[in-house]
């Protein structure tokens, strides 16, 4: 109730402020609009322009910077978006709470033709029936290391517990990515719901803390690039740009204990108002030339099999990082949504590591 009231107040103030613009936007409510809600900097602007020119559909793009900030806007139904691009476990949560509608794959010929079946299979971890998701970008969580400071092969997460590298290690500052690492060292699933296993992982992180220089998200990139740290846990999508910025850096995409394969995918919310346009948009994104244009601008690995030959030449030595061999992702786990109680447990265990 109260939430509605607050929302109304908020909306009223927006109306007051927007004034005459309101009427201009009214016109857009026709058939030829598409409301896209995606990660920031996750779509090439040229690609969107091309879509608008080819289809005559006007794209209204809103952006978010975390899955968590996207979720409430969809759950509250405050705005009716037509296409979203959340990550695996968040797609799982949206399905779980009945907020998505199944895709009509008959309208998605490019997706069927070009998206690697492996990634549709991998998506089953969070989209059990394979009805809701078209994979857009993917990657792993790996170790970036500086060869000037690390003179040994890096193939195991255990190197992050090596006293030699005290104060030279950067870890991810997010509950699931941080806890995933010790879970894999201990041989447990990264989707475990067993409290004892989670506590064992927490204890390992507490034990590691004196060796850690900092926990971070985006700043890990800068610190590795400037040589401030020797080892850092990062997402594979950052790897190419980092290695270009500092030639001493190397990337291990999949330590031998196993790592997380993440997938961001296109989905259509249940309350979408332009479902047909949404399908057109998703299919457009799967077209080889478009996927290649997006890839060249973003650098994230694409599950689109037709892209590799289009961009291979430009990539040179980085081609294996951009298109990792099957061995990197086959058999790896992806995050699934564990429910609210476990979400809270993860948050709390991570907090216990950080206040320790």
């Amino acid at each position, binding site marked *: 109730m109260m939430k509605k009231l607050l929302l109304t107040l908020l909306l009223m103030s927006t109306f007051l402020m927007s004034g005459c613009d309101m009427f201009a936007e009214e016109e857009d409510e026709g058939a030829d609009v598409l409301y896209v809600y995606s990660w920031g900097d996750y779509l090439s602007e040229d690609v969107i322009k091309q879509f608008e020119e080819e289809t005559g559909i006007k794209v209204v793009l809103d952006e978010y910077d975390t899955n968590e900030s996207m979720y409430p806007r969809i759950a509250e139904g405050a705005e009716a978006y037509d296409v979203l691009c959340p990550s695996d476990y968040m797609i799982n949560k949206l399905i779980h709470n009945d907020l998505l509608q199944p895709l009509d794959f008959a309208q998605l010929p490019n997706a069927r033709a070009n998206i690697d079946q492996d990634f549709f299979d991998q998506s089953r971890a969070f989209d059990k029936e394979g009805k809701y998701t078209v994979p857009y970008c993917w990657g792993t969580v790996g170790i970036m290391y500086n060869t000037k400071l690390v003179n040994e092969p890096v193939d195991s997460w255990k190197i992050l517990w090596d006293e030699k590298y005290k104060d030279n290690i950067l870890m991810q*500052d997010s509950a699931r990515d941080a806890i995933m690492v010790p879970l894999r060292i201990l041989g447990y699933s990264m989707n475990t719901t067993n409290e004892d296993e989670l506590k064992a992982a927490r204890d390992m992180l507490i034990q590691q803390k004196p060796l850690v220089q900092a926990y971070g998200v985006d700043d890990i990139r800068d610190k590795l690039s400037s040589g401030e740290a020797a080892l850092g846990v990062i997402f594979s999508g950052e790897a190419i740009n980092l290695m270009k910025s500092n030639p001493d850096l190397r990337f291990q995409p999949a330590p031998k204990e196993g790592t997380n394969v993440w997938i961001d995918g296109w989905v259509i919310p249940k309350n979408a108002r332009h479902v047909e346009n949404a399908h057109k948009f998703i299919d457009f994104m799967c077209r080889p030339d478009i996927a290649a244009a997006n890839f060249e601008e973003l650098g994230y690995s694409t599950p689109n099999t037709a892209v590799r030959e289009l961009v291979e030449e430009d990539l040179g030595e980085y081609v294996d990082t951009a298109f990792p061999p099957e061995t990197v992702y086959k058999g790896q786990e992806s995050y699934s949504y564990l429910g609210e109680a476990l979400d809270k447990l993860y948050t709390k265990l991570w907090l216990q590591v950080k*206040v320790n």
Partner: protein
Amino acid sequence: MNERLSSQRFLALPFGLWAVLFIVLPLFFVLWNGLKDVDGGFTLVHLQTVLQWEYLKALGLSVELALISTFICLVLAYPLCLILRERKESRGLLVFLLFLLPLWMNSLLTTMAWQTILEKHGLINMFLQLLGLPEVHIINTPLAIIIGMVYNFLPYMVLPLYVAINRIDNSIIEAARDLGANPYQTFRRVLLPLSMPGIVSGSTMVFIPALTTFVISALLGGNKVLLVGNIIEQEFTAAYDWQLGSALSMVLMVFIILNILLEAFTDNGETARQTKKGRA
């Protein structure tokens, strides 16, 4: 009389509207979130959660670092204001402006600058290395956070303190000297009591932002040193637990209200004393 009242009311309208929209409503939103359960009923469960050791530890550390920073700001600012009081000509003003300089720059920028100064391969360590001295380890420790807080919040101490100390009438100090007080006694019995309102409001203005900051601790503490502000930020963004975040904010508000009450009391005492003096 009535007409004046109504025009006063009219003039107060913009601020009244502002206060309701941006002060009262958000506060209400925080209270409401912190005290409701899943079904919208009243509950103290979130406040109880806050009493667990993880949160209390972060709260304790926040209070400790904020107190230390406030004390350092006071020790830095007080002598400065005494000196500035002596020389009221333009050079004093220049020094005064220099101390306020951090306010002119974006605090995020200055904090990031401190990051590059304190880093392992930062300016300080580069300098030490040049001299052949061992490196110091400051970044990502509580000390780095204190440095950041003092740098960012010092102007808030200098401003009220300068005003309070500048207001003290010279003749009072001269009278103290004439009556045989030595410099220490003059300071202890005359200057200090008379500047107390400045000390208290300066301390409040440093203590509160230091207590609630999350940017400084995130940037200079490498997220290894967790303050209450960081937990609140995490609860609202990453964990999507607005109830717990609100409950934590409520606990912080208690500290802030205590602080403001303290300020109000010393201020009131001071004005009361002054009016009494005036009447006598």
